[in-house]
């Protein structure tokens, strides 16, 4: 069955998802991966605001602008 993917910005507060793909500039992708947003990493959305969001990955909270979160494609965590 094909995995349904969505942007990280669409993830409701408190939900866990799995990173599937990063689609941004190479430097930004590298930095995101170094921060723990690797493919298959589990991310929890702590706060999802109108412009920014806070996610928890590898037990660390990362604050990010929605324009970055939109480049992180995720699927449901199962």
């Amino acid at each position, binding site marked *: 069955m094909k995995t349904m993917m969505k942007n990280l910005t669409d993830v409701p507060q408190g939900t866990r998802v799995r990173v599937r793909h990063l689609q941004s500039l190479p430097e930004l992708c590298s930095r995101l991966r170094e921060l723990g947003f690797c493919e298959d990493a589990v991310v929890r959305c702590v706060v999802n605001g109108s412009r920014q969001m*806070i996610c928890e990955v590898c037990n660390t909270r990362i604050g*990010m602008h929605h*324009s970055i979160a939109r480049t992180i494609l995720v699927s449901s965590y199962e």
Partner: protein
Amino acid sequence: MMRTMPTPAITTVALVGNPNCGKTTLFNALTGLRQKVGNYPGVTVEKKEGIVSSVNGRDITLLDLPGTYSLIASSPDEQVVADVLLGSLKNTPVPDAVICVVDASNLERNLYLVSQIIDHGLPTIVALNMMDVAEQSGVRIDVRHLSDALGVPVIPTVAKKNKGTDDLRAALLAGPAPSSRAMQWTLPETVQRELDELSGMLSAAHKYRSVVAHHTALLLLSSPAAPDEGRTDISPEIRAHVRQDHEKLDFLGIDRYSVFIEARYKWIKQVCAYASSPSLSTGASLSDRVDAVLTHKFWGVLIFFALMSVMFQMIFSWAELPMDLIGHGFDAVSARVGSVIPPGDVHDLIVNGVISGVGAVVMFLPQILLLFFFLSILEDSGYMSRAAYVMDRIMSSVGLHGKSFIPMLSSFACAIPGIMATRTIEHPKDRLVTILVSPLMSCSARLPVYALMIAAFIPQYTLLGVVSLPGVVLISLYALGLVAALAMAWTLKKTFLKGTSLPFLMELPPYKMPSLKSTAIHMWERGFIFLKKAGTIILGISIVLWFLATYPKTENATPSERLAQSFVGRAGKFIEPAIKPLGFDWKIGIGLLSSLLQREVFVSTMGTIYNIQDDSAGSMREAMQRDVNPDTGKPVFTALTAICIMVYYVLAMQCLSTLVVVRRETNSWKWPAFQFFYMSALAYAVTFGVYRAGLMLGY
């Protein structure tokens, strides 16, 4: 093939780790050096050294390097780490060994840097820090398995409780060896072949050490573009080879940017699976609920400004009593010394020059201590980075992002650490703009000027029965600095520092109870610096100023006339036409001139001038309130003059140390010169506007 022989004599050890892994706390525990512990990424922006207590008569120098996520640097402070470990930083020897500090509660992400470090072939010890936090979060780590998997000693530590530091010291003195598990991560065959080939070419062509060649090859292969013609450290043949490699890997559909990171993480996952069990925590925590409020788009901003208001109100009200006590203390010393020394030049020098000058500044010590107390609490509790998150909305409206707000907030204490903290900003233009506007934030050196003017000339009204007018004026001055900084940032980003900013992306450290010990040490350090400055520079300037305000002596003249005829009096009169449009007379002009290098000297200057001019009993404030302009018959100082002086000091660049640091950080005198002139022009223009508006309103 990596060496496996133990290193015989270790003299220099580098301490590296991710931001917020407790690295600086461990550095303090190992060396006993007192140093500020930050709680947001990038507080350690300078290389710091300490001596690990010697055993067997050997001392080991420990280098505390900035926190970093990776050796592939994306900001100036991260570059320092890579440069030190590669031995390419001037005047810093390649360390003999590395202590890699790992946050045990965040093993997977922290092991990414560990894997890069052990690939460097340096003898390495892993300090598995924050074991208590990991256990509380349900993370279980088998230390022996982890050590086996990494091929290096792993020492569990809880640095803030000094646990495990003896074991770490013993492991260090035993002489660690390079890991036998370096380069365990597996790359696709083609990529590995190209990496090895390029690495060999770099070694042969440039005589790079193998580790430098490997690091450079990895950088070149994973960078978006091949090195350009301007890069003289890479030969044209190698540039051409890199270009071919890029084309080949792109043709094969290999993502050059992610292939190295993914390969490392794949290996790290295997290590984690072998050596640890993951956290079992589920559901919303208290921290989640606190974040939801403190980072809320409306409540978060409101709480931030409310906190700032309370902070400045408290600085003003809590400091009142101790300031009065210090003031009375200096008055008593002045009276006692004055009664012992017979009248004459020595008497005047000691009483009017030294005691009045230094006393006028030392009086503000309580306010300085309170300012650093509150800033330290904000930082240690984890709130500072939330403030950056909240302020990102405002910062992005002027072309910067929230990360620039931390250096600006630090500049409330002093612009110098604020400017150095800009090293965490990745984008060069954003960093430069932040450097150029940070000194507009009101630093602690301005506080004595504000406090003197507010206490002497702003009435003690209470507004709405809660807030005092002096407190409101003080907050307004800090707000003016912030607004001016944002306006200048917007102007710079719209004109000759045009460019798009990177969106906000920042680690938010966990909330924690601020350490009273750390706060007390911080206050002590800053208080000591302030007193040292008062006892050296300000004392020196006070003595020189007394001389210049006393000589040449005019016989049969009033004290005021004698001051006017003195050297500084003449200098003040000389510049008076230029500052008269701002509502300033020649005596204020002396203060402006003498405080060109340091702002707080304005206060000691007023202390010296008014003690020489006004023989009657009473404080400096009272002497200033009594002073009348003989030409106009009006008071020299009014509430409007006081406001104009404060506005001038908010905006003017009167700090030589800041200019020197800006020169160092921008590697050019062009930017500090620009900064000095734009801030001076801005200060003059705004003060002129405020004075004119005040006159029109009848003040």
